[in-house]
């Protein structure tokens, strides 16, 4: 904050206040009196001016601090909450074991019309001007069911978001309507992550070299969510003029894919994807006028963070139930501070994660700067989500270590929050 007129005045006053002379001349009291009167009127003015809004009596959502959800968001969250608990949670164990999302679930998710939230009304969808908070709420609600299933079901919405945000109007008209169609779009995947240790998504190793009317893609993508099943890939690659996104047919010559099983996200059909001189027509480079690769990455990490908030909340709810039922030494273990304080800490950090994600999203959807907020949200969520994962297993003890309970799965899945770049997009 810069020093303004009032500040300079205060600097002078401070010197006056430190001085002895007002006391010597018995001036301190009158001085204070003067100041009191002066400040009262000036602050009254400031208050009147500050409180005046251009549209009187209408409290706009952009002028007051406000954590409440809109009616539509509230309804959506309630609906998805029950989908998460009734459908996702019961399916999660087997999906993890079989490393696949049940086909039936994919159909149910399409029927929910999630991808519609990524398609503008002009192309048959429901995406309005501000979508990021709603998208984050969708991810959070689904994440309460199961992180991997939620992530997998969010891939079509993410692809639609990505195209809507970063493709040209012509490309949008060509690619987006499918997402809002009856049968849904072909399966997509967003390939950003690279396998090198200390890989930086801002400095991609995968390259796209311009050759006449084509780009030639070379490189390797790692842990691509739903990468095995995708028939379309949105690929991040380094061009001579900076990082860019390409809409690539997964069946193109030069692309090879293989399963890349990991610690968690098992049902996500993670894939290693290799590009060897893959020819991509130049018009398939996403060409939105305001393409911003850093913002793209931020919207991706926010999606993972929002999922983490939901799954962490699920873990907290689960351990609360467990610790109240589990009896040791004659009473529920939740009667012990060593247990209860861990539970309290989880609640504190989860609410912190949630507010950090919401704020970054709310800034982004109003078109304000949000890279810092998204970055810090990621820093916090990466650390705290893992704390939730590991503490949840700890609180269940040996039982938490087995597959009888979902916490060991969440432990494996939540480790991904610090690692994934791309894959999803709010």
């Amino acid at each position, binding site marked *: 904050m810069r020093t303004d007129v009032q500040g300079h005045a205060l600097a002078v006053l401070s010197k006056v206040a430190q001085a002895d002379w007002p006391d010597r001349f018995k001036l301190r009291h009158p001085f204070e009196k003067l100041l*009191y009167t002066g400040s009262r009127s000036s602050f009254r003015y400031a208050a009147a001016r500050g409180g005046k809004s251009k549209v009187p009596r209408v409290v706009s959502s952009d002028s007051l601090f406000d954590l409440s959800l809109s009616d539509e968001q509230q309804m959506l969250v309630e609906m998805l909450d029950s989908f998460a608990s009734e459908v996702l949670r019961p399916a999660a164990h087997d999906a993890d074991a079989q490393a696949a999302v049940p086909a039936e679930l994919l159909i149910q998710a399409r029927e929910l019309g999630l991808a519609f939230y990524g398609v503008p009304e002009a192309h048959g969808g429901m995406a309005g001007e501000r979508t990021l908070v709603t998208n984050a709420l969708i991810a959070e609600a689904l994440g309460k069911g199961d992180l991997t299933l939620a992530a997998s079901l969010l891939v079509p919405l993410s692809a639609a978001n990505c195209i809507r945000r970063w493709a040209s109007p012509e490309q949008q008209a060509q690619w987006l309507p499918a997402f809002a169609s009856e049968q849904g779009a072909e399966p997509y995947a967003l390939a950003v992550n690279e396998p090198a240790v200390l890989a930086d998504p801002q400095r991609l190793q995968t390259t796209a070299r311009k050759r006449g009317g084509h780009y030639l893609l070379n490189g390797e993508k790692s842990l691509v969510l739903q990468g095995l099943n995708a028939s379309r890939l949105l690929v991040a690659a380094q061009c001579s003029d900076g990082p860019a996104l390409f809409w690539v047919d997964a069946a193109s010559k030069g692309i090879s894919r293989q399963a890349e099983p990991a610690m968690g996200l098992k049902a996500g059909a993670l894939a290693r994807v290799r590009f060897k001189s893959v020819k991509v027509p130049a018009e398939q480079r996403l060409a939105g006028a305001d393409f911003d690769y850093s913002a793209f990455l931020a919207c991706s990490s926010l999606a993972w963070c929002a999922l983490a908030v939901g799954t962490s909340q699920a873990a907290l709810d689960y351990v609360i139930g467990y610790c109240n039922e589990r009896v040791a030494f004659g009473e529920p273990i939740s009667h012990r501070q060593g247990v209860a304080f861990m539970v309290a800490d989880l609640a504190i950090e989860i609410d912190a994660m949630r507010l950090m994600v919401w704020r970054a999203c709310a800034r982004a959807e109003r078109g304000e700067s949000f890279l810092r907020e998204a970055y810090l949200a990621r820093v916090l969520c990466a650390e705290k989500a893992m704390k939730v994962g590991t503490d949840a297993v700890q609180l269940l003890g040996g039982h938490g270590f087995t597959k009888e309970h979902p916490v060991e799965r969440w432990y494996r899945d939540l480790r991904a929050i610090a690692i994934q770049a791309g894959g999803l997009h709010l």
Partner: protein
Amino acid sequence: MYLETPKKFRALENQAHQVAAQFFRPISRKYDKAEHAYPKELDLLAALLDGMNEGSPNAVGATSASKRGAAREVEEGIKNGGNLSALLGVMELCWGDVGLLLAMPRQGLGNAAIAAVANDEQLGRFGKTWAAMAITEPGCGSDSAAIRTTAVKDGDHYILNGEKIFVTSGERAKAVVVWATLDKGLGRAAIKSFVVEHGTPGMTVTRLEKKLGIKASDTAAISFVDCRVPAANLLGNPEIDVQKGFAGVMETFDNTRPLVAGMAIGVAKAALDRTRELLSRAGCRFDYRKPLLSVSHAEATLYRLEAEWEAARLLTLKAAWMADNKLPNSKEASIAKAKAGRVANEITLKCVELAGAAGYGEDELLEKWARDSKILDIFEGTQQIQLLIIARRLLGKTSSELK
């Protein structure tokens, strides 16, 4: 959803920041050194703040937090009121100096209690009196229900006997709000608060503490020996209501805990801002793009601290926002206090470490902030008390089940 400073409070936030930068900072080290010397500069500032308070419905200071009940807002929808504005002001002022804020005349807890529970007659008598708050005793800290100071009715007076410690501004204030029990056998419900004016026979300041930090703010020990206080100075209802009783007293904390969290956030911000400056001069770059793994350790540490700070700040704004909107916020107030208290302590200590010798030396204020911050994780309920409150709520436990 909007999680920024509301437009209507931006001017106030800026004013508070200017006070902090131009008024507090220049005398910050002076009163850290001169413990027990009264910062006379504060009289001038207090006059200014009183002006602000009367001039604006949303002004700075602890007393604004308790104005919420009196606010005559009738408009529908979301409100941003006294709790939020007081919090924003406190955050900025404590960026300047938390000790000086605590030493501010008429801005303390005693005045918050009076503003919250006094009747009209008492407000008339004590509304403008600088009042300190005396709760803690040598034998009871966090467990305020175990208060031993007694108040025995004798005609039109109560006779107070007992010893109070950790009374902020206990000597400088013109009066002290004293918590005492009418009947030890009846527990919490029998605890009442009394306004005792300095000069009342039987009330003596016995000691001023020498402390780790917030030295600008004096901390007194006060003894009461057959101290006769007019019965009309009992704040609130003189009846012992076993149903409610203590809850009424504790309600004050739901409003003041976010303010103490705000103090922690202010101090931590000061340390973060200065450390970022010093690190930038030493070649660190903060662009919020590079992965945490690829930046220097100092940069990564500062990012982490900044994330924790933002988290604490948002949690605290949430608690105040809930209070403004009359949503029950007991758990959230404790969450804010717990997070902000521990995070501010971690941040200020780490900032000393990050700045190395410069951070540890007295040429910088970093070491002072690291000392000042510790109390913020202790008073108005320690970290552990907050965790207890949060855990009981989450787990649905009573205080006898989860002790």
